[in-house]
C-alpha cells in the first residue's frame, strides 16, 4: 500500500508505513523544500501552513503541515511556498508583503503568504459584504503568529488585495 500525493505538481508514492510521519518532515527531509517553516510543531502558530486540495472538495484549504500526517493526504495536491512565484514573478501577495515591509525576520512569512493566497481565492469565488471584509481577513490570518512586526503591516498589505478580490478583481494563481 502506498500514499499518493503531489507536491507542487510532482507526484510521489510513499509507503504507508510512514503514514504517521508529518507532512513538514517529508517536505524538509525527502524533498528539501524547507520554505515551509517549523515553529511550534503543534499547529498553533501556523508558520507551517501549506495549501492542500483533496477531492472531492475542489477548494484548496490551509493545512498546518507540522501536525498533518502523511496518511491523511492520500490523493491530495499539496502546494508549498516554493510553488508560489512563477518564472521569477512574485505572486501579488508576496509583492505586497515585500513592498509593505510586512515582515522582519521573515520566518512566519511563508505561512502568511499561503493563507493569504487561499483567502483571496476564496473571496473571489465567494465575496463577502464589504463591512465583513475585515473580519474575514482576521479569520484567514488572524491566528498566525508574527513576533517581529506586530501584524499591522501584514494587514495593511493584504487589505487592498482583499478589497480587489472581493470586488472580483485581481488575477493570480
Amino acid at each position, binding site marked *: 500500500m502506498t500514499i499518493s500525493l503531489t507536491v507542487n505538481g510532482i507526484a510521489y508514492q510513499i509507503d504507508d508505513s510512514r503514514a504517521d510521519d508529518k507532512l513538514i518532515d517529508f517536505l524538509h527531509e525527502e524533498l*528539501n523544500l524547507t520554505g515551509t517553516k517549523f*515553529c511550534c510543531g503543534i499547529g498553533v502558530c501556523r508558520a507551517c501552513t501549506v495549501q492542500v486540495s483533496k477531492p472531492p472538495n475542489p477548494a484548496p484549504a490551509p493545512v498546518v503541515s507540522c501536525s498533518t500526517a502523511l496518511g491523511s493526504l492520500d490523493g491530495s495536491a499539496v502546494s508549498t511556498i516554493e510553488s*508560489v512565484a512563477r518564472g521569477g514573478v512574485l505572486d501579488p501577495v508576496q509583492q505586497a508583503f515585500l513592498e509593505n*515591509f510586512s515582515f522582519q525576520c521573515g520566518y512566519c512569512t511563508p505561512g502568511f503568504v499561503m493563507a493569504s493566497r487561499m483567502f483571496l481565492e476564496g473571496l473571489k469565488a465567494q465575496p463577502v459584504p464589504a463591512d465583513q471584509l475585515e473580519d474575514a481577513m482576521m479569520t484567514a490570518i488572524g491566528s498566525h503568529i508574527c513576533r*517581529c512586526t506586530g*501584524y499591522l503591516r501584514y494587514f495593511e498589505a493584504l487589505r487592498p488585495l482583499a478589497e480587489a478580490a472581493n470586488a472580483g478583481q485581481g488575477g493570480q494563481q
Partner: protein
Amino acid sequence: MDFRETVTGAAVTRRAFLKSTGAGVALTVIAAPLGLTGRAGRAEGAGLGAGSTAVPGVARQRIDGLAKVTGQKVYARDFSAADMAGWPDNQWHALYLRALTTDQAFEGVDLGNLPPQAQPVRVVLGNELSQAQRAPKVAFTRDLHMDERMAQEIAKAQRKSTVDADGRSFNLPPDVVFDLIVVPGNIPNFLGQAVALLLFDSVAAFRAAKAAIEFNDDAFQIYGSGLRDGPPLGDAFSPTTTYVKYGDEFSYATADPETYMDQVPGYQSKIQQVLDSDPGLIRQPFSTDMQAMDPMFMEPEAGLVWIDGPAGVINIVLGTQSPDGDISNILSMYDSDDAPFHLRAVNLTSCYPGGGFGGRDSSPFTLMLALAGAYSGGNPVRLAYDRFEQFRVGLKRHGAVLTGALAIDGNMSLQAIQMTLTFDGGGRRNLSPYVASLAALCAGGSYAVPMADIFAEATHTQNISGGSQRGFGGPQAFFAIETALDDIAAGQNWDPVELRRANIVAEGGATVVGGPVEQSLRLAEMLDLAENHPLWADRAALKRESTVEGQTCYGTGLAMSLQAYGTSGDGMVASVFLNRDGTITVQSDAVDMGNGSATTLGVTIGPILGSNAAQVDMGAYTLFGMTGLSTEDSTGQGWDNPHWTAKSVGSSSACLTALHQVHTVRQTAEALFQGSVLVAATRIWGLSGLTPDEVSWQDGLLVLNAGGVVPLKLSQLADEIYAAGLPCGALGHAYFQNTWAAAIYPTPAGLVPLQLDGVSFYLPDGSDPVFVERQATSGPDSTSTRYGRYVWAPCVNVVALSVDITTGAVQIENVLSVLNAGHIHVPQLVSGQSQGGVAMAISYTLFEDMPPGMAGPANGSWNLNQYHLARAGDVPLVDGYAPGQRGQQLITLAELPGSPPVGRGIAEAVMCSVPPAISNALRDATGMRFASLPITPEKILKGLGQ
C-alpha cells in the same frame, strides 16, 4: 550552483574573512547567501534598489526580503549536511536529556525503555568530557566597563585568596563554571541542564527516541543522593550594581573608583537622613514583579556541526547574534591541551536568525552544538530544538522583583529614588549581571533626581537562564518608576504629564549614575505632543463614551522611557568595496535578526557613493582581524599607538544599527570616496585637487558642480580605479564611547579626517587590505566609561484600553507612541520596529504567563498552547489614530534644523514604556494598581473583587 560555490563566489568575501588568532587557529565566517533554493538552484538576488532606477539612500524593500518571502534557505534550520558542499552526507542527530531536579544527584540514564528502533548509537555522559569541554571558559564581553569592574573584583578577590587555582569561583566567575553535561553523581545546578547527549545515525531513530522520551523524561533518568557541584542557590552573580548619588557631591560616575564602594554606606545614610528630616516629603513606596518571558523567536534554535578531526577543522552552521563570542567560546572548548583533536580552523556559516530579540545573544546553544560534534565519529551532526525544548532551555527575559520608594516634595520635584532590583538569573550567569546593571541605570527613568540609592543584582536559581532580551532590563525598571509616578499623581491629584514635565532630565543634566546627559533629548516636546493628542486630551470624554455600566470600563495611561542604546564602549567594523563592475558590496560585523540592519547599511552609503549596495554581508566579525588593530597596547601609548583600539567588536543588538553601525559604514564609505573615487574622477576629468564639496551625485552620476565636464558613472570610476591601482575598497573600524575616536589618514587624495580609529585600503591586485597609519588621533579616555551609557532613544506612550469587568479581559483600543528616533534611515523599518515593539509589549504585559520551576517550561511540556502570545486581534491594526477605531500611531520628532543625519537605536525604545502605560491605563479604568506582570484576567477579576 552548489552552496560552496555560492559562498565563496565573491573573491572579497573569501579573502576578507580570514583571520588568525594568536593560537594559530584560522577563523572563517561565511555569510549564508541569499537566494539559495536548495538543490533547485539559485533564485534572483535580493533588491535594495542598486539598479539604474533606484534612489540612493532609499530602500524599496528589505535586502533579504525576496529570499524570505519566497521561502529560500536563509535560516540555519533550513540547512542539512547534504546542502553543504564538501561535507559528508551521513548526518547524525543530537538529543540532550535535561535535568529534572536540583535536589537529587543525577546517577545515569536507563534507555532500556527505548524501543530498539529508537536506540542511540552513542550516549555521552558528563564524565566522558574533557575539562575544557565540560566547563569551557566562556567569555562575555558585552560591556567594557562591566568587564573592567569584573576584572577588578577578581583581582581583589585573588588578593584575598578566595578563588580556586583556576581563578574561577562562583561569585566572581570570569566564565561559566557549570558543566555542560552534569557529571553522574552530581546534583544538577539548574533545571534543564543537560545530563546526557544521545546521538543517532538516522533521522528515523532520532524521531522515534524523541517521541518516546518527550514528556516522559523521568522514565529514562536515574536520580539518587549525591553532592552539589557548586554553590547553593540564591547567591548573586557577580558583579552586582550599586548606584548611589547624592546631589553633585557624590555619584558612581564622579567618585574615585577605588573608594566608591567604601563611601557608599555613608552616603546611603546621608540620603536617609535627608528623607527622614523632611516630614513634608511625599513618600511613594512601590513593589512590582514580573515573570520571566520567552523571546519566542519563531525559529527554534538549530544548527549543524561537522568536526573534521584529522584536519583539525570545525565547520558550524548557526544563526546567532553573537558570532564573536560564539567563536571565542568554541575555541575555549577545543583549543586546549585536553582537546580530542588539534584545532586548526573554525568555519562558521552565519545565517539570518529567525528572530532574536536577544535570545540568540551568547546563547548556550552554540556550545551544545559544538560539543555534540566531537562524539559523532567525524560525521556531521544536526541539533535542532523543537519548541518544547526551546521553551525548556532557551534564554529568557528575567523574572524580577523591584521594590523601593520615591520621595517628592510638594512642588512636584522628585528628591530621591530608592530601588532594589532582583533579577532571577536562572541557572547560568550568561549576561544577567549586565542586564541588571542597565536596569539600575534605567531605574531613574527619564528624570533628574538629586538623590538615588539603587541596588541591582541577578541571582543564581534553579530556573531557566535569563539573558539579553529586548530592553535589557529596561522593561522591568521603567515599569517600576512609571507606575510609581502615576500613583503619586493619583494620590496628590496631580496631572501625570505635569508631574513628569516637572522632573524630566535635559541636556546638561545627569543620570542616576552621575554621568552627564550631553545629547538633546527633547522630552518636553514629546510630552507636549502626547498631551495635546486627542487620545490623551479627550480621554475624559472618551472614557464617558466607552464605559458601559456593569460591563466595560475604559482608561487611558501614559508612560515614558529613556532607553539607552549601545554599551559603555562599542567597537564596530565594516568594509565597503567597489566591485569592478561598479556595484558595491558592504560587509559588517552586525547581524540582522530581522530588524533591518542589512537593509539600512545597504542604503546608507547611497548618498556618499551614488548607489546603494548590491550586496550586504552580515556577521562578518572576523573583518576585525584584517584591520591591523589590536586591543593589546604593549606600548602604553593608548590612542597615540596607531594600532590600538579600545574594543574590537561585540555582540549584535538591533539598537546598535542606527547610530553605531551606520556611522561605521558611512565613514568607511567616505574613506573610499574621498581617498579613491574622487581621485579617479580627478584623473578622468584632467583636474587636480578636487574636494568633496566640488562634486555631487545626480541620478547616479558624479557631477562637477561647476560643470564643464562629462558626469561619470560609478562603473567608469571603477574602471579608472582598477586601471590606476587606486584603492577599490576600504575597511574601517570605529569606536564610540560618548564621542567617536577620530584621526587623520593619509590617502591617495591627501590627508582625510575621519571619525574612525582604523582604516585599511583594498587594492585591485587582490592582496590583503593595506593598513593606513592614522595620525593626530583623538579618542575618549577611560573616565566616561563609568557613565555607563551616553546616548538615548526617548519615547512617550499613551495607551487606551477597555476592560470587560465580567471576564477581566483587556482590549487595547489605541496606542500613541511619540519617539525621538533622530534621523530616520528607512521609515518603514522604524515604524515596523515600533509596531512590533507595541505588540510584544502588549503580549508581555497581558498574556505571557510563565511560572518558574517545574510548574513552568522547565518541565519540558510547554508550548504555544500554554504560553499565549498576542495575536492580530489583540493589537490595534489601524495605522494611525481615528476615534472609534483601534489604531496605533507613531509620531517621530522632526529633525532639528542643521542637525547631522544621525539616527538613534530605537529597537527597544517604543516597547519599554508600553507596559507601564497599560498598567496606568488599567488604574485609570479600574482604580486599581496592577503591578504584577502578566496582568491576567484572573488578577484583574481578583483586583476588582469578583
